[in-house]
């Protein structure tokens, strides 16, 4: 049974206005979600492109070097490795310096190296130091080098940004709860006399609450679906015009975000409906007017 006559224009308007408010609030939350996913991916991208360089001894046989590279590839913390031989290293440095230093010196002083790119999770100062020790154990390794300061700086900045985003997300979630709560309460306030009539004819609190709860779930569901549609339009626009946008490529995360938004909307609308109705069930009737 519907607690309010669905054919009534005012009830329809009230229902639609709650759905619109919920979808706009959820859309904002979704935008923040997209921003969070993008920054997470961006920080992973930055971390995974910092290399640890392993310089190889001059006399190391190339078969052994290749075997060592393969063993590195198999390690859990390694995302990828790149082998750079002496000649390639000289070529790169010549290009960077703009001078033929090999011709000037008469020999190539550079060593062959393996650049190791770590998985983002392992790019913490402690882990990298441990990995450095592990890498240096091999006899073919002359030196292991990485920019400690850069890793510290990246981690520090990622942490700062994460704190800011989490703080902002909590604030936005609170604001969204207040806004949705106010909208739902207002729509139930408009139906307080229906609740009163139900009580006077002998309806139980459970019977009175149930339709409001179902209504809240429906409003949350519709609000969530509309918010996801708006987000999809926005993501499509970005995916077409800014092809490097990380989140547009990460469909799993987007789907997860959509499901979370819809469930959050349904939960919030249902819970606020529940408490608002309970409030009117318990209220002193004199305060209804």
């Amino acid at each position, binding site marked *: *049974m519907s607690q*309010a*006559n669905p*054919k*009534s224009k*005012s*009830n329809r308007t009230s229902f639609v206005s709650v759905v619109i408010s919920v979808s706009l609030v959820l859309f904002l939350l979704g935008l923040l979600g997209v921003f969070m996913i993008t920054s997470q991916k961006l920080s992973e991208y930055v971390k995974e492109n910092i290399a640890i360089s392993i310089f190889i001894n001059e006399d190391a046989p190339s078969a052994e070097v290749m075997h060592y590279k393969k063993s590195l590839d198999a390690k859990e913390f390694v995302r990828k490795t790149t082998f750079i031989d002496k000649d390639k290293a000289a070529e790169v440095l010549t290009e960077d310096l703009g001078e033929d230093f090999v011709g000037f010196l008469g020999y190539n002083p550079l060593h062959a190296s393996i650049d190791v790119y770590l998985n983002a999770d392992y790019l913490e100062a402690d882990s990298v130091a441990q990995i450095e020790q592990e890498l240096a154990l091999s006899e073919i390794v002359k030196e292991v080098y990485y920019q400690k300061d850069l890793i510290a700086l990246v981690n520090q900045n990622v942490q700062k940004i994460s704190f800011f985003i989490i703080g902002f997300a909590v604030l936005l979630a609170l604001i969204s709860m207040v806004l949705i709560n106010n909208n739902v309460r207002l729509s139930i306030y408009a139906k307080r*006399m*229906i609740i*009163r*009539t*139900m*009580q*006077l*004819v*002998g*309806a*139980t*609190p459970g*019977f*009175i609450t149930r339709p409001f709860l179902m209504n809240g779930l429906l409003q949350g569901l519709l609000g969530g679906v509309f918010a996801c549609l708006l987000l999809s339009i926005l993501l499509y626009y970005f995916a077409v015009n800014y092809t490097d946008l990380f989140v547009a490529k990460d469909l799993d995360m987007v789907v997860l975000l959509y499901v979370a938004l819809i469930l959050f909307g349904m939960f919030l609308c249902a819970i606020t409906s529940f408490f608002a109705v309970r409030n009117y069930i318990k209220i002193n*009737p004199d305060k209804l007017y």
Partner: protein
Amino acid sequence: MNTIVDITQAEIKQNAISVLHDIQLKVFAGELLYLVGKTGSGKSSLLKTLYAEIKPKNIQGSVVDFDLQKLKTSEIPFLRRKLGIVFQDFQLLYDRSVYDNLLFALKASGWKDKKKIQQRILDVLNEVKLEEKGYVMPHRLSGGEQQRVAIARALLNDPELILADEPTGNLDPQTSEEIMRILFDICNAGKSVIIATHDLEILKKFPSRTLRCENGKLIEQVAP
């Protein structure tokens, strides 16, 4: 004689001020009882006590076999299903037809069988002579007709007791008489009716036992 209301002791307070005290009230099956008194004398508060909207701490007695002292909040809906309540301002739902108002009340009080629901609505509309108005919206009805819908709604669960709080307060004398005649007929059919009113003309035209709320007490009023 079967007792429908049997209050042996009660004190009703509002905002910590005693409105009525030493209340003793007995209403028998098929009896029509008037509650009269000035505005604020406690007529409505007494009715609210009977349908458990006000729950005085020191009350002893029962209404339609529900012990008001031991009455739990969860039992109030079941008490109200055995009562019919009529208000001065009708308290109808203006976003739906007369039929839907009654349908809503029946469903809210636990009715499920569609055929029985339909039959019951037709029966009560017939009882208040509104059989032709089922699909009319309440705002299109006159005040008297709206009050008749409210009475029809009160009759839906075949209650043992009808509580009417100033049922003619918003109506002209002729319509008031029509409403009183319906309530009188309901009473003659074996149901008890308690009417809170200050309309003395009604009392003259439809005389019955009368209690006066005066100086915080409920006093039996002797017929002139």
